[in-house]
C-alpha cells in the first residue's frame, strides 16, 4: 500500500498540472458565454493540446493513456471549476459502443469530433413503460428499403436538446422474446420527425427530455450490430454507464455538515459537541469515507488492468440515500430555518435543500436503489434471479397490467 505516485505517475501529474495551470479558461475568456459554450471552448482547447479523451487511440484524438493516467488527469482537472457534464454520455458511453460496433469510416468521421466537443451525443434508451425493465421498450423500427422508419417515444434523455447525434435502441421484432427483438442505431438528432420536450423535475430544473419519434428515417448503415442484436450492443453502453455516473461528488458532504454544526448552537454549545449530532455525523462519514476508499481500491485494480465490475454499483447505492439523509440532517440542524429555500437568506440553502430535492432523482436515475441492490445480489454474490414472467414469451404477449 502506498498513496504516493510512482516517479512516472508523478511526472505525468506534473505535466498535466502545468498544462492546466496555463490553459484553463480565464474569467475574461468566458465572459458572456453560457455553460455549454464554455464547455465547448474548454473541450476544444484540451483536444488541440492532446488532453481530451486521453485514453483513446491517438488516431481518434486521444493519447492512449493508461487507466491510472486517466485518473490522475481527472484529479488534476477536478481542481478547476470547468464544465464537463455535456460530454460525459457521448465520450463515456457512446464512444466505447461505437469503437466496439461501428464501421472504420464511422469511427474516423465521429470520434474526433466527439473528443473535441464539436459534436455532442445523447443516449435514447428509456421509455415510459420501461423504467427498471429497460429492455421492455416499445419504440419500433420498420425496414423500408435501405432505411428504417422509427415511431415511438423515449424518455429521460439527458441533453437531447443540445445533442447532435444519439444512440437509440428500438424494437424491430415484437414476435420474439423481449431481448431478442431489438436493434441499435445512431441517428442525427436533427432528423425530421424528432420532437424534443423537456421534462420538469420536482427540483424545478429540466435536465431530461422526452423525445418523440414520428416516421423518423435512419439509414441501415447507421445500425450498430446485427438486426436483433440490439440488447447486446446496449449492454456495452450500459457497462460504461456505471463507470460514467459514479458516486457523484457534488451536493452536501460531511465536511459541510461539520462546518454547519460548528456554527449552529444546541443548548448553548456548538452542535458539533452534541453527542447525538456526533453519532449521526460519524455514520455518514463511515459511508462517505468507505466509498472514497472503495474507489481507491477500484483505481488500484484499474491500474493493474482490471475492468470495473458490478461491485461498483455500491457507489450510487450508498451515495444517493446518504445524500438525501445528510441533507435532511443538515436542515434539521438549522431547525425551522433549515426549510428556507432562499439563497439571499441562507448561503447553504441551495446546496442543502438542493441536495434533499435532487437526491430522490439520484436514487432512481441509472438504476434505482432496488435495481442496484439486485445487481450486487446477482452479479457480485451470484444469487439467483427472481422468477421471470416474461422469459421466452413473445414480447407482444408479456403482461403489462
Amino acid at each position, binding site marked *: 500500500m502506498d498513496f504516493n505516485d510512482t516517479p512516472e505517475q508523478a511526472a505525468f501529474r506534473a505535466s498535466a498540472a502545468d498544462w492546466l495551470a496555463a490553459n484553463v479558461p480565464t474569467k475574461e475568456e468566458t465572459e458572456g458565454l453560457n455553460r455549454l459554450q464554455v464547455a465547448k471552448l474548454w473541450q476544444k482547447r484540451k483536444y488541440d493540446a492532446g488532453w481530451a479523451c486521453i485514453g483513446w487511440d491517438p488516431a481518434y484524438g486521444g493519447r492512449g493513456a493508461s487507466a491510472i493516467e486517466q485518473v490522475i488527469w481527472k484529479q488534476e482537472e477536478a481542481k478547476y471549476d470547468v464544465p464537463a457534464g455535456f460530454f460525459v454520455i457521448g465520450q463515456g458511453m457512446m464512444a466505447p459502443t461505437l469503437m466496439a460496433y461501428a464501421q472504420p469510416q464511422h469511427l474516423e468521421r465521429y470520434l474526433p469530433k466527439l473528443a473535441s466537443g464539436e459534436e455532442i451525443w445523447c443516449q435514447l434508451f428509456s421509455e415510459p413503460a420501461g423504467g427498471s425493465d429497460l429492455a421492455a421498450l416499445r419504440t419500433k423500427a420498420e425496414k423500408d428499403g435501405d432505411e428504417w422508419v422509427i415511431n415511438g417515444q423515449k*424518455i429521460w434523455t439527458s441533453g437531447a436538446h443540445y445533442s447532435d447525434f444519439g444512440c437509440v435502441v428500438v424494437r424491430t421484432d415484437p414476435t420474439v422474446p423481449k431481448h431478442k427483438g431489438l436493434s441499435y442505431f445512431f441517428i442525427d438528432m436533427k432528423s425530421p420527425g424528432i420532437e424534443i420536450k423537456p421534462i420538469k423535475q420536482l427540483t424545478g430544473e429540466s435536465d431530461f427530455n422526452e423525445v418523440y419519434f414520428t416516421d423518423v428515417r435512419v439509414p441501415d448503415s447507421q445500425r450498430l450490430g446485427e438486426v436483433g442484436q440490439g440488447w447486446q450492443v446496449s449492454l456495452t453502453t450500459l457497462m460504461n454507464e456505471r463507470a460514467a455516473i459514479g458516486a457523484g461528488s457534488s451536493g452536501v458532504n460531511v465536511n459541510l455538515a461539520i462546518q454547519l454544526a460548528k456554527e449552529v448552537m444546541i443548548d448553548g454549545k456548538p452542535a458539533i459537541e452534541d453527542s447525538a449530532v456526533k453519532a449521526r455525523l460519524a455514520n455518514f462519514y463511515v459511508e462517505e469515507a468507505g466509498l472514497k476508499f472503495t474507489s481507491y481500491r477500484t483505481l488500484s485494480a484499474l491500474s493493474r488492468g482490471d475492468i470495473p465490475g458490478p461491485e461498483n454499483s455500491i457507489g450510487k447505492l450508498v451515495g444517493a440515500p446518504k445524500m438525501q439523509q445528510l441533507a435532511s440532517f443538515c436542515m434539521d440542524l438549522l431547525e425551522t430555518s433549515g426549510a*428556507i429555500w432562499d439563497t439571499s437568506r441562507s448561503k447553504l440553502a441551495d446546496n442543502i435543500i438542493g441536495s434533499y430535492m435532487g437526491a430522490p432523482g439520484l436514487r432512481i436515475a441509472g438504476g434505482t436503489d432496488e435495481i442496484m441492490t439486485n445487481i450486487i445480489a446477482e452479479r457480485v454474490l451470484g444469487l439467483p434471479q427472481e422468477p*421471470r414472467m416474461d422469459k421466452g414469451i413473445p414480447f407482444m404477449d408479456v403482461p403489462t397490467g
Partner: protein
Amino acid sequence: MNFEFSEEQQMLRDQARNYLTQHCPTTLVRRVLNNRETHDADLYKGIAEMGWTATTIPEEYGGLGMSHLELVVIAEELGRACAPVPFSSTVYLAAEAIMALGTEAQKQTWLPKLADGSAIGCFALGEAGGAVTPDQISTSMADGVINGTKVPVADGGIADVAIVVCKSDGGDGATLALVDLSQDAVAKDNVQMIDFSRGHAELTFNGACAEVLGEEGAGWAAVESLMNSAAILFAWEQIGLADKALEQAREYALGRFAFGRSIASYQAIKHKLAKMYVKNTLARSNAYYGAWALNAGASDLAVAAATSRVAAIQASLFSAEENIQTHGGMGFTWEFDCQFYYRRAKLLSLAVGSEKQWQGRLVDGLAASA
C-alpha cells in the same frame, strides 16, 4: 377501556374527507405551489364556513366548544389533502395560545375572528438557525411596544395577529406578545420555503404596539406547553400525509408492470410498502394516545406529545421519500403529485421543533417520571 374515535367523530372525518376531496383536489395544491401563492383564500373561507377553525374555541367566543379529539380528526384530513391554508398557524398555535393565556378582552377581540376565519393568526418564535432558547431571542417588548425580527413565520405574510415570543429579563426568560399585524410598524417580507404551497414570512417589528399575552416572564413555560399541544395536532397532519403517500405508492406499484408482473409483487417494493405501513401504524397509535392525553390533560402529556411528534416525523418523512422511490422516474417529475408530500413532510418536520429536539424532550420526560 375504549381507544377509538366515537361515531360522531368518524362522521366528522367522512365529512371532512369528502369536503376536501371536492374543494382541495391536488390541482388546487398544484396551482398554489406553481404560483408560490401564500395560500388559497377561498378554500380557507370554505373551511371556516364548515366550522373547522372554530372547533375547540368555546361557544362564548363564537366557537363550537368541541374537544381536541374532533380537531385531530380534521388535522389528519388537512394533512392528507396537503391543504394550502393557514389552519395550523391560526388554530393549533394562535387560537390555542389565546385560549390558554388571553385576558377576557383579548379573547373577545380575537377568538371570534379566528373562529369564523375572518382573521388569520400566526406564531413567531425563531430568529435564526438552530434550536431556540430564551437567551437567543433578541426581539423585545417594553411599555406596549415591540421591536425585533422573526423569521421564518408560517403564514406571517397573511396573518392579522401574531403571538410573538420576546425576551424577558426576569422570570423564565421570555414573554409572549400579542401583536395586531395591521400596523404600519410591522413589515412583512415573504420567505420561500422548501414547500412552495405554504407561505412564510419575515416579520419585522419597528416599534409596533403589542400587548402582553399571559404573564410577563412566564412566556417560555407557555411556549413549551403550546408546543406540546401543537406537536400532537401537527402529528395528525403528518399521519394523514403519510397515509396518503402510502396509498399513492401502493396504487402506483399495483398498476406498474416490470418484467411481466406488477412491481408491487416484488419484495423490494412490497416490503418497502409494508415498512411504511408499520411506521404509519405506530405513529397513528402513538398519536391516538397523544390525542387522548391532550384531551384529558393527562399528567404525561409532555411524553405523549413528544412520542407523537417523533413517530409522526419519522413516518411522514419515510413515506414521502419512499413514495417517490416507488414511483421511479415519474415520481421525480414536477408533473406528478409525489413532490407535494415530500416538500410538506420536510416542512412539517421542522415546523415546531426537529426530531432531535423532541427525542430529547421525550426521554427527559420519561426519565423524570421513571
